[in-house]
């Protein structure tokens, strides 16, 4: 009986092998088409950024630049060759760095300690507290923009990087707590219980036992927060303008304003510069990045 079944399986597998070669060609062909689909805009951005404006008007989207010219990149970065009044990215890039670092560190730390308190020191009603955080990850920010603008004004930090740090920490906590809570829930309580019997307190257990084993989730959380804060436009555009704007707002201004003549090469160079930090993180830590994405949206 067992033999018959294996024989049948073997025959089936041999059959399918022949069919497979054709299938696999089709398969790789379709996968290849999608590679082209996803890479085309990036390719267009890169070649355009190295062209001169006359080249852009003469050639087409996909034609290669005649030589590697970094003029557009220099213009996009620090305004080299500008007539004045135009936006360039350098100061805003640093604004975003000054914004991202504290916002990510504070929200991640708070998230880790919240997640730990919610899972390893359970108390009555803790699941309702968690629900408050969870629902907070879904709210459309339009529902909080107006009171936030007023609150920042009252606190005297509207149109400042500190104000944006506050905003990103406040709304980031929901995500960081969610990530860390879901991670700690899957970790056995044994070690914590043993440490508690030995008389270790809340913070001692957190720093000595929990934090050392939290590296994976901390990396996921940091990457998620970094991407969120770096890529944010809504908060940046609403709560800051002029000199304290973050990079996404600056990029949008650069593309929209600029001189009378459109400079598509500068636009593309600026878009690439804006995208580089998150792309680097994605390439270096892709798996953590994907984990964050799925954890951030498929809750639970």
């Amino acid at each position, binding site marked *: 009986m067992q033999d018959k*079944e294996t024989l049948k399986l073997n025959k089936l597998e041999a059959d399918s092998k022949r069919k497979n070669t054709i299938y696999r060609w089709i398969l790789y062909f379709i996968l290849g088409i999608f590679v082209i689909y996803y890479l085309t805009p990036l390719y267009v951005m890169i070649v355009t950024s190295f062209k001169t404006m006359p080249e852009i008007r003469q050639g087409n989207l996909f034609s290669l630049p005649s030589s590697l010219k970094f003029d557009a990149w220099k213009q996009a970065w620090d305004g080299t060759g500008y007539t004045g009044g135009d936006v360039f990215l350098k100061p805003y890039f640093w604004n975003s760095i000054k914004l991202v670092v504290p916002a990510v560190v504070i929200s991640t730390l708070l998230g880790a300690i919240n997640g730990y308190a919610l899972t390893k020191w359970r108390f009555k009603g803790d699941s309702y507290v968690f629900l408050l955080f969870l629902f907070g990850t879904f*709210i459309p920010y339009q529902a909080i923009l107006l009171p936030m603008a007023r609150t920042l004004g009252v606190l005297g930090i509207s149109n400042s990087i500190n104000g944006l740090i506050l905003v990103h920490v406040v709304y980031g906590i929901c995500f960081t707590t969610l990530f860390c809570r879901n991670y700690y829930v899957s970790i056995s309580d044994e070690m914590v219980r043993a440490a508690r019997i030995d008389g270790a307190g809340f913070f001692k257990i957190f720093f000595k036992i929990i934090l050392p084993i939290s590296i994976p989730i901390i990396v996921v959380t940091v990457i998620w927060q970094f991407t969120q804060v770096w890529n944010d436009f809504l908060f940046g555009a609403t709560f800051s303008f002029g000199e304290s704007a973050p990079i996404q707002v600056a990029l949008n201004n650069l593309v929209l304003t600029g001189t009378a003549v459109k400079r598509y090469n500068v636009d593309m160079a600026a878009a690439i510069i804006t995208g580089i930090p998150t792309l680097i993180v994605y390439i270096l830590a892709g798996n953590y990045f994907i984990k964050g994405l799925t954890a951030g949206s498929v809750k639970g």
Partner: protein
Amino acid sequence: MFWLKKNLPKLVLTPSLGILSWFVYGFIFWTIYISFTKSKMLPRYELWGIEQYIRLWKMPRWHVAVENLLIFTVLFIILCIAIGILLSILLDQKIRAEGFLRTIYLYPMALSFIVTGTAWKWVLNPTLGIEKFAHDMGFETFKFDWLVTPEMSIYTIVIAGVWQSSGFIMAIFLAGLRSVDDEIIKAAKIDGAGIFSIYSKIILPMMRPVFMSAIVILVHLSIKSYDLIIALTSGGPGISSDMPAVFMTTMAFHRSEVGLASASAIMMFLTVSAIVVPYLYSELKREDAR
């Protein structure tokens, strides 16, 4: 001292809970309240009934925004899920260089909507973009000017949105496929089922929770979509590609219509809640059952 020790976990959570109840739930209630007032440039606190909601639903511009949201959401969901399923099934066939392909399919997700919008605005440029390329290839009459055509501008946002998010849906479905037991597929093969019917009749129906998550994520993304529209069309030409999120910020910060803007924000909030609350409820029930 004993009290402190016993309540330390709650004390640690207190600052975050304070922040949450003020900046999230308090703010939402404030916005709800303001949506029932006559607030114009500054908030006013005398109640005005549901007048703002009546004004909102009488505004042609709001109807444009809601219609666009519907068009965008439906197409965005269908296309992202179709591409996501196709790519995840193909990648699940023990493909060489799977990791490499996955990296390429997913990288747009690392970019901001502003970067994506800027890139696609150039690709779709009516004179120098794809249209020029087609002309150079010899298709002299080819026309592609959706960006500046009011009836078509919303579809350019669909194109860019699908490009950015479909790889992510692929990743979710791939994770779902990987959690399906291999034995089931083997058994079906022995019974003589073809690869197509195995997926369409056995595996995909098993992935109902994945479909649910994907749809909730995509609806949520489309209701919140703001950056992409600003970067790609700025809601134009005219107001032809307006969406609720853009409507809200315009009314709030450029038109001094704080009450009306709040009413539109609350409409968005209610829509998201109507989708998310049942979803969270079923997810939490599933978790309890485990």
